């Protein structure tokens, strides 16, 4: 897996076992190891993604200093 890409966890959902995992088991992209194989398994419906790992939820904090200063008047 190339650097910078988050690992994805999949669930085996197809009728057939995938890489030794039965239906309902989980497997990660790192365990699959090959992006083409991973995409083919996804396309065939053998696996489906559960939750991407190492992807923090976006934060909603505002950075200081973005508010207009008190008393400032907009230019015309």
């Amino acid at each position: 897996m190339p650097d910078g890409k988050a690992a994805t966890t999949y669930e085996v959902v197809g009728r057939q076992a995938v890489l030794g995992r039965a239906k309902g088991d989980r497997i990660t992209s790192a365990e699959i190891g090959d992006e083409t194989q991973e995409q083919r398994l996804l396309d065939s419906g053998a696996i489906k993604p559960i939750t991407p790992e190492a992807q923090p939820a976006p934060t909603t904090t505002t950075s200081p200093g973005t508010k207009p200063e008190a008393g400032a008047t907009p230019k015309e």
Partner: protein
Amino acid sequence: MAKSILREAKVEVNGVDLSNHVQKVTVTKKADEQDVTAMGAKSKETLLGISDDMIQVTFYQDHAEGSVNRTLSPLQGSNTPFKIKVTHSSGSISKTNPAWEIEECILPEFTPLDGQVGSAETTDCSFKPAGGEGLKELTS
């Protein structure tokens, strides 16, 4: 070693275990024969040329998600290789339970629909090496 009845051969294509849809599997190790007979010979002289191995499988067709058709159809017609592995029986690979593998194979032809009324739907597939090391026999 006792005579053997084939009951539990394991067939994995692109990581998907399709064993429970396999009717028949054939692993063929073969090499081209080159005739190099020269003047003065009293019998033909033959040398082996390039290997021409393959794994042939007859699957019972299944159109469900992740099963036979959905696994094999995208593999046909692509030059991006995938792996096929056939193990003689379930259990660990050993000298008495060998496996055969084509690490980089292709599927030149695939018949998604083949059958007649009232018959089991099957599809015959020939998996061929796409270069690389060809067919390997694994004993461990």
